[in-house]
């Protein structure tokens, strides 16, 4: 019986393939966007876990030195004592606009988890160990690295993350200009009898286990939460399509449902048939969505991997694996979405009166009372959104605020549009404009879901666009300030550093040491830089707040500047004493913006730095001030004179280009999701207009009979779509700007630790308005065209039928 009812219900889709396609595409797209975000997050999590496992999942300990360098002799001492220890060198290598992490390992003693070394591959093993060495990198990075001169042969390995290079430790030491020092030693903690305990053997080294990789997961948590929120928003927009399509299908099948009931089909049987239908559609759309999601995620993942490396230094594989967690999640959300969208139809089917006269457009006759209810709900949500920041803080509160704001704005859209049209009716002159406005108002219930989807997509576009553009503008200004030196030099060791410094003194206008030490800032791990007293800093350094005599106090070693994220998270005020690991606390004299750095950082006078941290200070880098026209010549001279490490001399323009490239990649995912969401909303509009068009005849036939041609009616349909899109944009604009404010002032502060000034981009808004109207016109074009081509016989039939 249920099967017969199901067949009768499913036969509807055979007669309405376009509507079925709308439903499946809508649910498929929504699932795809959600799945792609889940796949990216799952891949990132797997990479963090893998990194943790590589460190032995707790059995391997990482030994590091406070100053960042461990002599090779220390490693030898561990080996001689019987410890299974393996040295590691890590550094950066820049190729074009890509920054690689170069990791040097000792293959014979490396932990078993180092899959990239492909144990058992003799040929690879020999090439890896013998001169000139071998660089292993991700397949997509091979070409880029091959263009660099002076590098050993490059080989692809799927096990290496994008933007990562694995090589023999000796090769890495040579490329990074390291002498007989390594960055860390990996030690198997399972001690054997007779071994000296590590705290006695190497007391000078710090020990941490693989579990500290949790810090990466913690740091990147906000980023993944951002992605998840965006994925969910995209899913919600997609769900509007599904809800609209299922709602319309219910109205079209109302008579069939009533007939089935009259013929003796029990209510439970009809409900079961509707649920089975929803599940079948969900599984079909879910499968399409998961496959599409995989494609989208594969396209976005390299960008996300670069973002995570750029922002947090987290290593994520650029290749996407098919993981059960995200495809199961994709199917689950498709099923849940379909059931949620069907729930109302199922409830209405269950309570459908057997004898009520058929009202094919009953849903369109939404009363003014319903609009009032919607307005009350919307205003309540907007009020909650206004209260949240006063009472709560944190990333979850930020997203709750966003949810209330967006849902509130979406729910208020139909009553707001109805009110605007109502006012318009009062001022309308002439019968056609009066009919047009009244008819548009009557169309609102049928179009409201699509318009809400469009509004959400437009608001998101405005909000995220404003956030990204504001960030870009701020970031570019910040780079100009922060990268004031014309040339940046990195030396191999301290001896070379001193030689380079002496050589540069007479050849540059100023040599600014970029020396630093790893230490604790107010009890948190961080790095302290030392600066000399120079106009470069006084004129350019991007201070957010500072005392009048900040640079004087820095120069005399009495003051300290901290970066914005430390300032916010530590709750510091100017004048507070800041503990800097060694020596007496210094007075906080200023705060500088430091975008893209997740760690605590501080700046003190150079002399204070060397006095406090002595041998722990890394003295390898310099910024050079000189005339722009001298940069090329000095670069060549420096490279000819000294055996500097790869990328040892970089000019300001290259660093800026690199930084901006990282920035663009950081928001490439956001931009892609933005465009996809807007496309989904445009599709929702198209689907709703197309379905409504087939049900519009009873409204249009009388006007046609009164003398309005089909072409005029079609033009009015186009005008209606354009007007509604424009009005929707008008409501999306303030919503989007509020969204931008929340992202810049609440979410970013919580997620990244920095607050950004909000800039306005009216030209972008106008372009978006034009796009929205264009999308609506394109969506209305097909229904309008079919209206023109509709034979008059069909109009006449309206009068022949009893309705």
């Amino acid at each position, binding site marked *: 019986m249920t099967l017969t009812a199901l067949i009768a219900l499913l036969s509807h889709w055979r007669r309405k393939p376009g509507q079925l396609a709308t439903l499946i595409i809508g649910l498929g797209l929504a699932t795809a966007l959600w799945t792609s975000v889940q796949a990216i997050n799952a891949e990132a999590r797997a990479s963090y876990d893998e990194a943790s496992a590589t460190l032995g999942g707790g059995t391997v300990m990482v030994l590091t030195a406070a100053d960042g360098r461990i002599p090779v002799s220390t490693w030898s001492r561990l080996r001689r004592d019987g410890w299974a220890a393996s040295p590691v060198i890590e550094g950066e290598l820049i190729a074009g606009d890509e920054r690689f992490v170069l990791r040097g390992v000792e293959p014979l003693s490396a932990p078993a988890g180092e899959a990239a070394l492909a144990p058992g591959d003799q040929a690879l093993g020999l090439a890896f160990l013998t001169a000139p060495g071998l660089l292993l990198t991700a397949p997509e990075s091979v070409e880029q690295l091959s263009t660099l001169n002076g590098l050993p042969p490059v080989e692809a390995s799927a096990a290496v993350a994008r933007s990562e290079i694995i090589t023999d430790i000796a090769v890495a030491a040579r490329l990074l200009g390291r002498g007989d020092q390594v960055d860390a030693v990996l030690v198997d903690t399972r001690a054997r009898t007779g071994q000296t305990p590590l705290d006695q053997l190497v007391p000078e080294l710090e020990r941490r286990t693989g579990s500290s990789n949790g810090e990466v997961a913690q740091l990147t948590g906000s980023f993944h939460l951002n992605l998840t929120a965006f994925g969910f928003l995209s899913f919600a927009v997609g769900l509007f399509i599904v809800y609209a399509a299922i709602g319309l299908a219910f109205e079209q*099948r109302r008579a*069939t449902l009533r*007939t089935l009931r*009259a013929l*003796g089909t*029990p209510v439970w049987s009809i409900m079961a048939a509707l649920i089975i239908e929803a599940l079948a559609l969900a599984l079909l759309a879910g499968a399409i969505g998961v496959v599409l999601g995989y494609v989208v995620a594969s396209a976005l993942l390299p960008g996300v991997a670069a973002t995570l490396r750029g922002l947090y230094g987290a290593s994520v594989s650029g290749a996407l694996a098919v993981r059960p967690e995200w495809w199961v999640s994709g199917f689950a959300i498709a099923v849940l979405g379909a059931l949620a969208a069907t729930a109302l139809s199922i409830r209405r089917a269950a309570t459908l009166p057997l*004898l009520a006269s058929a009202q094919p457009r009953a849903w369109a006759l939404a009363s003014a009372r319903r609009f009032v209810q919607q307005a009350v709900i919307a205003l309540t949500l907007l009020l909650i959104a206004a209260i949240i920041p006063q009472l709560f803080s944190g990333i979850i509160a930020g997203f709750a605020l966003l949810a209330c704001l967006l849902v509130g704005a979406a729910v208020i859209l139909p009553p707001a549009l109805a009110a605007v049209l109502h006012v318009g009716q009062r001022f309308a002159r002439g019968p056609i404009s009066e009919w047009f406005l009244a008819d548009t108002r009557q169309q609102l219930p049928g179009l409201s879901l699509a318009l809400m989807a469009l509004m959400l997509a437009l608001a998101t576009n405005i909000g995220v666009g404003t956030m990204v553009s504001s960030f870009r503008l701020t970031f570019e200004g910040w780079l100009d300030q922060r990268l004031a030196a014309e040339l940046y030099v990195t030396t191999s060791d301290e001896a070379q550093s001193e030689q380079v410094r002496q050589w540069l003194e007479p050849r540059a206008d100023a040599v600014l040491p970029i020396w630093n030490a790893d230490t604790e800032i107010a009890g948190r791990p961080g790095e302290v830089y030392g600066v000399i007293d120079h106009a470069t800093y006084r004129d350019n350094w991007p201070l957010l707040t500072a005392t009048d005599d900040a640079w004087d106090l820095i120069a005399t070693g009495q003051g300290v500047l901290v970066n914005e994220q430390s300032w916010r998270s530590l709750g510091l005020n100017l004048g507070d004493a800041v503990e800097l690991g060694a020596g007496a606390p210094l007075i906080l004299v200023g705060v500088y913006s430091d975008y893209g750095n997740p760690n605590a950082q501080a700046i003190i006078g150079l002399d204070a730095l060397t006095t406090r941290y002595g041998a722990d200070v890394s003295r390898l880098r310099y910024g050079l001030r000189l005339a722009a026209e001298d940069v090329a010549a000095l670069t060549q001279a420096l490279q000819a004179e000294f055996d500097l490490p790869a990328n040892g001399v970089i000019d300001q323009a290259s660093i800026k280009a690199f930084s901006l490239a990282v920035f663009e990649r950081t928001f490439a995912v956001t931009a892609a999701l933005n465009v996809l969401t807007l496309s989904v909303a445009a599709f929702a509009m198209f689907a709703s207009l197309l379905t409504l068009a087939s049900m519009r005849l009873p409204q249009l036939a009388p006007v046609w009979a009164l003398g309005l041609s089909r072409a005029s009616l079609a033009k009015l349909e186009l005008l209606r779509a354009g007007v509604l899109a424009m009005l929707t944009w008008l409501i999306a604009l303030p919503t989007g700007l509020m969204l931008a404010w929340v992202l810049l002032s609440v979410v970013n502060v919580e997620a990244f630790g920095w607050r950004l000034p909000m800039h306005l981009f009216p030209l972008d808004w106008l372009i978006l308005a034009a796009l929205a109207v264009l999308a609506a016109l394109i969506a209305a074009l097909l229904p309008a065209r079919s209206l023109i081509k509709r034979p008059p016989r069909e109009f006449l039939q309206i009068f022949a039928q009893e309705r």
Partner: protein
Amino acid sequence: MLLTVDRLEKSFGEGAARQAVLHGVSLSLEAGESLAITGESGSGKSTLLHLIGLLDRPDAGEIRLKGELISALDEAGRAARRRDTIGLVFQQFNLVPSLTVAGNLALQARLAKTHDPAWIATLAERLGLTDYLARYPEQLSGGQQQRVAVGRALATRPALLLADEPTGNLDENTTQDVLALMLELCRDSGTALVMATHSQAAAKQLTRHEHLTGGKLS
């Protein structure tokens, strides 16, 4: 006795707007008998058929079918009797637009699990629908659609066929055509018929005729 209706009462509306439609209507029907109920518009013909067809509940009174008190059945029981024992033909045809003629003809029989392809083929042939089995309702004329509705209702070989103004939307010739077929098929399958109609001419073709006025049969 196949059908017994005893002192049926039915009102619509609330409070002062409450309007009594049926005032203690009683009737009975033997198997294979056909009864025409005539009356003015709004006299309660359709309401009476809805109550007998278990599409609505009476305020008072009893309806027995084959001796069973069907007016007291719960929702599931009412659906089961509609499906298995009663056939319904409506003025508006009420076909499923997305099913073909063949699908519509077999629909109720499939629901009742009494699907007999040979019988349905016979019905299709006698109703002149054999050439239209693959068509959809919208591709048929009004008379053809009503013949599909009659075939669907008789596909389960119901004990009772209820027809509410079955020819109300049809022209004179088609009315005669559909009516003759319906009566012939009912007679051949031993199905009792209760038909509401405002046409005296149509009513005269049935074995019995009752007139409904002021909520009572006369």
